[in-house]
């Protein structure tokens, strides 16, 4: 039997595959690898009201690696922000679900992203604004490891610590791969936890494939970060949770045949049934 959070994560994976299947291609690898983090966030961590996506006192999430929108859309649909059927319109002409997150098109999406690095600053700006207004809402941010090659991420890291943003928790989806290959071969992050620590952030590093563990770690972080921004480094696998995709070396953007999607969906349903 799966825990409720693991079941939620599996459902998010199933719905993502439905999206890719309907469109025939997409950013599969990096969507799958943030799924367990999304399951924790939308499975109880975030203060939200799907019936009122623009509720002023909600927590916010910025998926800065905006190409992972399909994972976020699946989570939002499962939470009731919009019908599951809508997922089949991913990237169709005139859709509300574009390949990169768009706050003006999709209910529940808090920030427009897709130009890597920029979500880091907008999330930080939201945390700053909420703090300045005396609100107790929190801001969550998901960064890619390749994305952290952008200088903007590190400018934000300096700023967030300087401004003591204790309402701000970032995740690094440390799946070790980017578009062209392995982060180590291209421009290495080495030990990102140590880097953020030296920037005076509160830092945790855990395996990122267990939503229950992520959930716990977030609660613990909220308790202990005090007035520091927090970074939770998630050791993940690009394509995480779907063996066939994990094993595909260049799995950033993939064609998705109906056969492959159905095979994966069947596999995931079996996991749920134990």
């Amino acid at each position, binding site marked *: 039997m799966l825990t409720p959070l693991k079941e939620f994560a599996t459902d998010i994976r199933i719905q993502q595959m439905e999206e890719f299947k309907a469109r025939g291609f997409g950013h599969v690898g990096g969507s799958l690898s943030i799924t367990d983090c999304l399951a924790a966030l939308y499975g109880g961590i975030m203060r939200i009201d799907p019936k009122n996506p623009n509720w002023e006192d909600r927590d916010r999430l910025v998926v800065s690696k905006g190409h992972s929108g399909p994972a976020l859309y699946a989570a939002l649909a499962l939470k009731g922000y919009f019908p599951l059927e809508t997922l089949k319109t991913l990237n169709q002409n005139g859709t509300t679900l574009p390949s990169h997150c768009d706050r003006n098109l999709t209910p529940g999406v808090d920030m427009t992203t*897709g130009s890597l690095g920029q979500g880091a600053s907008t999330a930080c700006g939201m945390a700053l604004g909420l703090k300045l207004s005396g609100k107790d809402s929190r801001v969550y941010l998901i960064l890619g490891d390749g994305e952290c090659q*952008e200088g903007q991420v590190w400018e934000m890291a300096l700023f967030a610590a300087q401004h003591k943003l204790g309402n701000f928790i970032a995740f690094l989806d440390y799946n070790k791969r980017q*578009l062209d290959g392995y982060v180590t071969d291209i421009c290495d992050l080495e030990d990102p936890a140590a880097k953020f620590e030296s920037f005076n952030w509160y830092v945790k590093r855990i395996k990122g494939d267990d939503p229950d563990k992520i959930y716990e770690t977030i609660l613990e972080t909220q308790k202990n970060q005090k007035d520091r921004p927090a970074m939770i480094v998630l050791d993940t696998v690009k394509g995480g949770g779907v063996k066939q995709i994990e094993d595909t070396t260049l799995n950033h953007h993939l064609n998705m045949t109906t056969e492959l999607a159905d095979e994966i969906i069947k596999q995931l349903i079996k996991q749920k049934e134990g």
Partner: protein
Amino acid sequence: MFKCIYNGEKETKAGKTVFGETIRKMIEEDPQVVYLDADLMNSIGTSGLEKSFPNQVIEVGIQEANMAGLSGGLSAVGKKPFMHTFASFAGRRCYDQVFISIAYAKNNVRVIGSDPGITSAYNGGTHMPFEDICLYRAIPHSTVIEFTDSAMTAALLPVIKERPGLTYCRLSRKNCIAIYSEDSVFEPGVANILRDGKDAVIFACGYMVSESLKAAETLEKEGISTAVVDMFTIKPLDTAKVLEFAEKTGAVVTAENGNVVGGLGAAVAGFLSETRPTPVIRVGVKDEFGQVGTPEYLAGVYGLTPADVVAAVKKSISLKK
């Protein structure tokens, strides 16, 4: 000399394949060539080159601003850098670095921006460059080129390798509609007359060249004789040809796969209004952001179809004195 082979068919090779082959050839022939990319080598047909030519191919990672600065520095010590990213990021994500560290500092760098305008299709609004021509035009002394097809890409890249200053090139990574024979030769700054005509002229670039040729065929059937000129060099503008055809036809249309603000149409209209005031109708994106969709769908949304060009030609003729 060039030869126009247009018949409405697509090229057999994708733009990215030809780009990758040409970059490889230049690297083999000229040890001073350095190719830089910001994690888009898989998208543009250059992946693997960094393994074969580690001293000439640099995979920088996702850091366009750093890449532009690096290119300026490489030029300053005698290298011939080519840097590539999507046209959206080539314009927006490193503009100050390109402006100062490359152009103002008088370094010689070729910037390649791929997926121009609606050809970025499913990548959507964040990735859909309608503004890059405007941005690069606004940099003093820059050269701005849009490759019309792969034959041009292969022929012009080696020419641009020796060009001083900042050169920006828009490049489609998909299969373009074939316009030129493979043995065509091109000269930056010299526009190509693809079709003569006496009632109106269309100055087009990039994706809109084939759409303008289609439009001219339709107009021909209606008895309207329309010239089509490929303005692949948007800056410096071939003012002699603009003037010649404005005088000859008295009705001018421009067509580009980008925002009309600051683009090819703005260049042509600006020049003509100061030399020989002539009605200029601009076909292009009317100050809008991008979105996801097929190029065909997006051409309809943004008014970039042959029918839009036909309508513009008729309007320009109706405005003739």
